């Protein structure tokens, strides 16, 4: 299956981003309660996030956004699509 194309390259699920890698959000989960909640936390298309970690056994994914860590459930992290950024090209981590 070919990954969906987005401006800037192919997008992957946030959970599949390696730890420490950056990505620009290309697609958010379909409209429902959780989309509102994510957006209220500042997660929206175009924002650059760093994946900090993913817990085993379908545990949550922790990401860093504007200097803040946010943990989201495994299922949601599969429907947040990001375009991976190279370290040099991507926005640096806010406090690095």
């Amino acid at each position, binding site marked *: 299956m070919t990954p969906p194309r987005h401006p800037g390259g192919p997008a992957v699920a946030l959970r599949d981003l390696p730890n420490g890698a950056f990505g620009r959000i290309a697609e958010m989960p379909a409209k429902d309660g*959780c989309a509102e*909640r994510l957006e209220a936390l500042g997660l929206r298309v175009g924002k650059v996030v760093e994946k900090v970690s*993913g*817990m085993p056994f379908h545990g949550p994914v922790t990401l860093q956004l504007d200097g*803040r860590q946010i943990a*989201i459930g*495994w299922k949601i992290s599969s429907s947040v699509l990001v375009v991976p950024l190279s370290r040099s090209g991507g926005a640096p981590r806010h406090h690095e």
Partner: protein
Amino acid sequence: MSEKTAKKLLLVGNPNVGKSALFTRITGVHAVSSNYPGTTVGFLEGWLRRGDDVWRVIDVPGAYTLTPTNEAEEVAERMVAEGCDAVVVVLDATALERNLFLAFQVMERGLPVVIALNMVDEARHKGIDINPVLLEELLGVPVVSTVAVSGEGVSRLLDRLREASPGRAVPSTKEERWAAIGRVTEKVQKVRHRHHTFLDKLEDASVNSFWGLVIGIAVIASSFTAIRFAGEGLIDGLLDPLFERYWLPVIRYLSGLFGGGGFLHDIIIGRLVDGHVDFEQSFGMLTTGLYVPVVMVLPYVLSFYAVLSFLEDFGYLPRLAVIFDAILHRMGLHGFAIIPSLLGFGCNVPGILATRVLDSQRERFIAATLISVAIPCAGLQAMIIGALGGMGMKWVAIVYGTLLFSWLLLGRILHSLLPGFSPELIVEIPPYRIPSLKAMALKLWMRISGFFLEAVPLVLGGILLISLMDASGITGVLSGLLAPVFSGLLGLPAEAAAPILLGILRKDVAVGMLATLGLSPSQLVVATITLSMTFPCIATFIVLWRELGGKRLAASMGIMIASALIAGVSVRMLLSLNV
């Protein structure tokens, strides 16, 4: 201060931005605050006098948005919609962009706003500089930098309440709002390069798939060790010697006055054991009635809340939610449910109240039932360790192991039986902060005084009731009626029925009574497991009723009694195979 002439002031902001700390600063009313989102689900109010004005100040539950996504936000939206004379929007300077979303929503509704740009000290540490003057100019509302925990800037903030204004915001769509926020943020905020500190690295490690587990296990193990060490130390090194030395002579004297026996003596001093007063076994109001709450339970309550307050204020608990999410997800909950469960280890009441942070009725039912069944409160734990620890820690471990297993199994069963689905975790993880000793001490004091006010009267009442039931023969009748269950199913003597039933008042006293019956270790294990899991104590019962409603409470109680009997019988059978 009359309610009619007072002006209404709302404190509004995202969760965990220091609203409660600011509220305490402004009103002198102590609000409990912690370093995790959602400490305030209900709201608090207090008074402020400033110049000629009297303000009724309301601490609104933390909200990310006025388009509600949970109960706290529904409450916040309602309170903002009701209108007021001024709103202090508290912004977290370390996350300005996201915090401005709520501020814009409030301003767009035309409410007079003053902005408290809070945690500017932490922002500076993080290399974030915000220009408050420029922010004020761009928004058209007063902006004051504050550090609520230390009080910095609070007075200036209050001075400017009269200048509150809706500013320049006009009603806009979400996209327009984010764009406007982006423009403002870009102008007022400068982010400097900064190296990773030790705390930053610890933050990352705490949610790492390997180190997170290592740290989690270390935190839990060292917390339990510290609680036990401090609890035992306080009992053996301080409180027990004090009681023996200063209180025992008074009791002996009183016992002599009452003639060493008789009805009144039995109620006030209790029964003499081998001719002596025994604080643990006499069961008089002035002996066991004071000894149990003050000497045996208080030290554990104190050390538990000291450790918990530290973990709360340091900001560790939300990381625990990340670690436990995978397990809790299989029990119909998400990771955040670990926080109410942990609070339940102190007292089930605040634990069950904290289940309000969960999203659905289904989750709240599962979480509250699991807390009542399988989370022993500090009082109960103190008595379990006191009664069983002397016979060997193996017995204590069997009780804890059974409770843990029941927690997991019952969660799994409830998740499969109840219609609905496990919600997904979405939680902001606060940065680690070195806790303020003063704030921790204050919180500890509030919790300990709460324990005293609630526990001591109930323990005294329970002991009075036991004496009266004994004297009137009710205990005998009850024991006779329940004997088939207790001796037949659980292998316990009929006398164990009365203490287990009295667990409805307070479970710590009930274990104290069980300990006087001369049971074998395995009988005591079965009895404490049954007592721990079966119906809740009266305080928990009331709060469950309020939170769940009558029908769900009945279902929850049915589950508790069934689980208690099944666990009691199973453990009895397993132990009889072995011993």
